[in-house]
């Protein structure tokens, strides 16, 4: 039964992974001969301030993304789990960003945030007329916001589904005991959503670690190196500088960090003992 999935996974994930591991030990510019490099690429990547900065930015971006997306998605998801008509309408609106391609979203935001022709100057709002993507101190936060705008709907959907799974009897019992909305949320919804939170946060973390397309279109890693996160650094090293060896090192670092983080999260939260929360199972 698992064979097709395993074959696909082997061909498209494991084999390239070994390929990249091999590439990380050679010098190759994509055109000429491949020459043995030993651990030169690893040393060069470790001592390169741009790549080290990229690693730090990636951690920062991931933490900021989770801090921004997790609470907003949780609250929105719980809110939208209600069955009222207006909530269904709002849900449809909130989920719209899920339908857009990230390149289109990035291009639109670039236009909206343009200091000369963007929303700020069109509406004559000085507050909105910042040098959003051109200021090294601002650009990363703008990116966190746009990524959030794209992905909060997805995580909201997960939380909405998770919340709807919670047996209603629990709430009825709590209400009979006189628990208010806040109490119900803190003592029933949150604990019951534990595994949903783990799933969503893991997806968020690993997603942010490897996030690429939005940033590439929004800033291309600039201004300076202000948004040159690790995946972007890997891409630019590989496909702009044509240094496949160094790029492969960065790719392996990403794989290692991604694996470590998602396994770590699983362990920390006890989700590896993922037992069912439903009644009767």
């Amino acid at each position: 039964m698992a064979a097709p999935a395993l074959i696909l996974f082997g061909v498209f994930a494991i084999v390239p992974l070994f390929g990249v591991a091999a590439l990380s030990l050679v010098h190759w510019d994509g055109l000429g001969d491949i020459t043995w490099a030993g651990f030169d690429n690893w040393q060069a990547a470790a001592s390169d301030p741009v790549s080290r900065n990229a690693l730090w930015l990636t951690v920062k971006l991931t933490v900021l993304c989770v801090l921004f997306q997790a609470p907003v998605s949780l609250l929105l998801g719980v809110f939208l789990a209600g069955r009222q008509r207006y909530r269904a309408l709002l849900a449809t609106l909130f989920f719209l960003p899920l339908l857009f391609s990230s390149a289109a979203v990035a291009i639109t935001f670039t236009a909206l945030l343009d200091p000369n022709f963007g929303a700020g100057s069109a509406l004559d709002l000085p507050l909105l007329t910042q040098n959003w993507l051109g200021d090294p101190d601002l650009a990363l936060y703008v990116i966190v916001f746009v990524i959030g705008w794209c992905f909060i709907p997805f995580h909201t959907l997960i939380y909405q589904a998770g919340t709807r799974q919670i047996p209603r009897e629990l709430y009825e019992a709590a209400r009979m005991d006189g628990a208010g909305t806040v109490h119900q949320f803190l003592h029933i919804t949150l604990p019951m959503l534990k595994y949903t939170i783990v799933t969503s946060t893991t997806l968020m973390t690993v997603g942010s670690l490897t996030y690429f397309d939005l940033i590439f279109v929004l800033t291309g890693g600039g201004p300076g190196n202000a948004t040159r996160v690790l995946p972007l650094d890997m891409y630019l090293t590989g496909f702009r500088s044509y240094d496949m060896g160094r790029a492969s090192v960065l790719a392996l670092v990403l794989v290692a960090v991604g694996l470590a983080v998602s396994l770590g999260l699983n362990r920390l939260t006890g989700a590896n003992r993922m037992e069912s929360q439903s009644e009767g199972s």
Partner: protein
Amino acid sequence: MKLGTRRRTLLALGAAAPVVAALGACGNKPGAADGATAWGLTGGAEEAMRASFEAWNKDNPDNEITAEYFANDAYKEKIRTAIGSGNAPTLVFGWAGATLADYVANDQVVDVTESTSALTDRLLPSVAQVGMVDGKVYAVPNNQSQPVVLYHNNDVLEAAGTQIPTTWTELLAAVEALKGADVIPIALAGQSVWPELMWISYLADRVGGDAAFQRVLDGEAGAWSHPDMVRAAQMITELVEAGAFGDGFASVVADAGADHALVSTGKAAMILQGSWIYPEFLTNAPDLVASGGLRFSTFPVVEDGAGDPTAIVGNPANYWSITASSSEDDQATAADYLSEAVYDDAHIDSLLAIGAVPPVAGLEDRIAEEEDPEFLDFTYAMVRDAASFELSWDQAIPAEQAQELLNNLSRLFLGELSAEEFAAAMDATL
């Protein structure tokens, strides 16, 4: 339900694997057609190129060339993997420079010295020269010469009580006057970074002549910290600190044309850009062009500089090369196309019609017959009479150095690096 440890590891691997797959998943050949193929660029002179291939295919139904067009950035990435993996089209669009030298060193493109001599004999020598490596022709131009030009919105300059600057001192004075008038003196697409190259290339050339960059090309130690190069970098810092590019230049993207839009809408007075943006002015600001409000000039002279004031930078043209991996029939078809169809009468007409001047000798009379000959005449004379035509720096040097250059240059413009730090960082790449 419990998940076994091994399966979870695999699942987690799966979440991280697409990154890796992205590194290995390039280089497939789209629409692998029979016969000769060509990959070109969208935008710019795409129309003229399409028309040229259509005319060729009509006249040579047995030797058709199938052309595909890509956006600039996507193309540059794709073509290298395609050539490296033997999946390249017959005709490869390029910028010559270090990439062409790389192709030649790896025997990826063929010598076309003899098969295209009918074409190369008609070209302006400075442009034909760029397609040669070690005295042999490996690339022939396929569109217009693209010198970098200083464009002006004269209405804005006049309103600020200043005029087109011809010297560095006048440029600084104009910047002051324009700031006083509350407009951005010079539009610059800083987010794209490559427009910033135009500034340092011209400044280095005006200060130190073409020797300044030749030292870099020759890989001379300390080429970037030569006083002329450092002076050019300092002048950049001076301009940025004087507010010449406004506050928001690092947000401006060239691909969307947000830089020249500032000039056509009167929000900025000047822009240093390639001649390829002129058609955009015709489309976006026809009134400004018709009223004579849009002016153009060569780069200002630096008073005590050693550079020749007629020297220009930019792209002498784009080039076609024939790949060694294509079949002999396809190579022959492509060579015939190059010598017979490139810059034939119809091709020249379609280029001139979009305001693009092909690097062909003796075009003066044909340009004079065009409806709007002023800009064509200006750029043609600029290229014809140039003491030197320096290829864009990011194309001229190896890709890895070019990336470092773009990175450090953007930081120089942002004020994160001083001129001396910029020079030191660049010296380290030699």
